[in-house]
């Protein structure tokens, strides 16, 4: 890691561990995950449902529902402040102010009985010294910034009067109102129409560039990753299994799981062309987090697995410059289809 990059770091997560205590036992939703986000950078976190992406984000926000969940280890440092050591009141000053979050479901993430303008005003008044009037003007300005037509009128409306795309824009306006250093977008486009998805994504990236915000983009859509991110981490069963720049990852995936994800992406076929190629899938199921195999969690589904994979967990190691993977066979895999 070069010096220049270190200076630019806004978020530094080290060995984060979040566990859930449930009736069926303890499970490690996030197990020893580390990553950094630089100013203005987009880091994508990719993985299947239940791999720990969202819990990682909630752990950074310290919003993991407790009980049953708890962050039990590691550190989360935002602009030099260790978030895990703050008390709840200090943490509230950070949330919505220095770190904001956009959620997957714009239909249910806005309060149905509050006007859009009031919901944006609230975050401004919580964190900035503003009169109600100033905050309202700023809220309207934010709605204009996220390209909602007629922001003056829309600010007076309730969530049910807005379309899904419009609500997500309002969420973005709310998240960026205090100019946070870091924005976490948890599957921000999953619940939207395909045509709207691209617009919302373009809007997030555009505003991120304009405001210099660091962005953690959580998604299971590798297409989204290719369009927006600079760096990617791939998670599987609560662990980080690969980290690389986006070009490197797409050109030269090292972990068999990443390869599987890429192979299962549908290729765009030109109109009229006939193909009988079946979409690839990764065989088997994501293992239950309460009952993980002793070795690599992916081994039971991996067609390259050897005895060692099933016995010992592979550590995350640098396989190429700035490209990390947790696989015993990562270095052998060059050129293997």
């Amino acid at each position, binding site marked *: 890691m070069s010096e220049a990059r270190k200076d630019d770091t806004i978020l530094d997560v080290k060995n984060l561990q979040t566990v859930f205590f449930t009736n069926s036992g303890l499970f490690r939703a996030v197990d020893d995950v580390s990553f950094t986000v630089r100013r203005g950078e987009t880091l994508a976190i990719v993985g299947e449902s239940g791999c720990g992406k969202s819990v990682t984000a909630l752990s950074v926000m310290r919003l993991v529902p407790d009980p049953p969940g708890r962050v039990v280890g590691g550190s989360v440092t935002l602009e030099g402040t260790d978030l895990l050591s703050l008390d709840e009141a200090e943490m509230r*000053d950070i*949330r919505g102010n220095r770190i904001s979050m956009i*959620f997957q479901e714009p239909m249910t993430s806005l309060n149905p*009985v509050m006007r859009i303008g009031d919901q944006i005003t*609230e975050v401004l008044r919580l964190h900035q010294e503003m009169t109600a009037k100033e905050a309202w003007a700023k809220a309207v300005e934010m709605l204009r910034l996220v390209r909602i037509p007629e922001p003056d009128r829309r600010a007076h409306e309730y969530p*049910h009067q807005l379309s899904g795309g419009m609500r997500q824009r309002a969420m973005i306006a709310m998240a960026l109102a205090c100019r946070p250093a870091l924005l976490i977008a948890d599957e921000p486009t999953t619940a939207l129409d395909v045509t709207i998805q691209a617009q919302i994504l373009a809007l997030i990236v555009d505003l991120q560039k304009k405001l210099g915000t660091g962005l953690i983009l959580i998604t299971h859509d590798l297409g989204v990753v290719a369009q927006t991110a600079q760096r990617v981490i791939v998670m599987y069963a609560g662990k980080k299994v690969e980290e690389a720049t986006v070009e490197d990852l797409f050109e030269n995936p090292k972990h068999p799981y990443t390869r599987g994800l890429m192979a299962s992406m549908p290729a765009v076929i030109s109109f009229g062309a006939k193909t009988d190629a079946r979409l690839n899938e990764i065989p088997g199921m994501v293992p239950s987090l309460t009952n993980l195999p002793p070795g690599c969690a992916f081994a039971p589904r991996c067609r390259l697995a050897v005895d060692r994979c099933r016995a010992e967990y592979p550590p995350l190691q640098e396989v190429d410059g700035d490209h990390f993977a947790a696989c015993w066979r990562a270095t052998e895999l060059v050129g293997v289809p």
Partner: protein
Amino acid sequence: MFAYIVRRLALMLVTLIGISIIIFVLLRVVPGNIVDILFDAAGFVDPTDKANLEKELGLNLPIYQQYLNWIGGLLHGDLGYSYVSEKPALQEILPRIPITARLAALALLFSASIGIPLGVLSAVHQGSRLDYTLRVVSLSGLSLPSFWLGLLILMASVSLFGHMPIYNPNPATWTEAFAIYAVPAMAVGFRSAALTMRITRSSMLEILRQDYIRTARAKGASEASVNYRHALKNAILPVITVIGIEAAFLIGGLIVTETVFNIPGVARFLVEALRWRDYPIVQNLVMLIAVVVVVANFTVDMLYAAIDPRIRYGD
């Protein structure tokens, strides 16, 4: 919205006409009228005297004629004369209304101001010792009949203070006024408070799981703001429904409570009038209660639209 309100008001009128017929018929289906009661007590009497008295009170007319006379009078503000006191029914009823209204308002205020915050507290601390305690107390509220609770309170006040609150139309001090009104109001409102608490709790538990509550936390809102500003406003609709229904049920509770605490309100008066088959008093009082219930329902529906922007009537 306007068209809806007009339609609702028309419907309320139809409901009230229906209720008036039911009240009227039911009262006369019950065997024995005031003349029977008076003359039975006197032993053997000349049947012509009895017939004369019935004629004087209009009880010999066909039922539909009696009904039309009553409604015709109502429309002119003439409620008839009490059979017992021979005073105009309006004069008998009117001065008693504020007493019962005060009791009922206090009881509702008590149930909302106790039930809602405790319900929120119970939901926020779900599964804690506090939650269990509150739930047990609320269960007792639902199971204790208000007359028994009233008796317990009276007995407790006698054994603790050596006397019990006695109704006085012009209380001299605030403490006396409090003892006269607040104590019976609490006795009758305990049940509503318990019900309100339970509904608030379950409604809050449902709302606290919603995505927008997580959003509010992610904005940096405090727990109090999350619970009251974001959650309670969404959770309050079913609570309002329950309070509206309780407002109607309250009359039933007040009948016994006014009797236990010896308060000369409308509810106790109704029972006395019923005993004497004092038709003008009973039918007008029950009609008054019906109007209160219908208006309470209407108010609840209007409050819905005021609180939840998604509810719009008549579009």
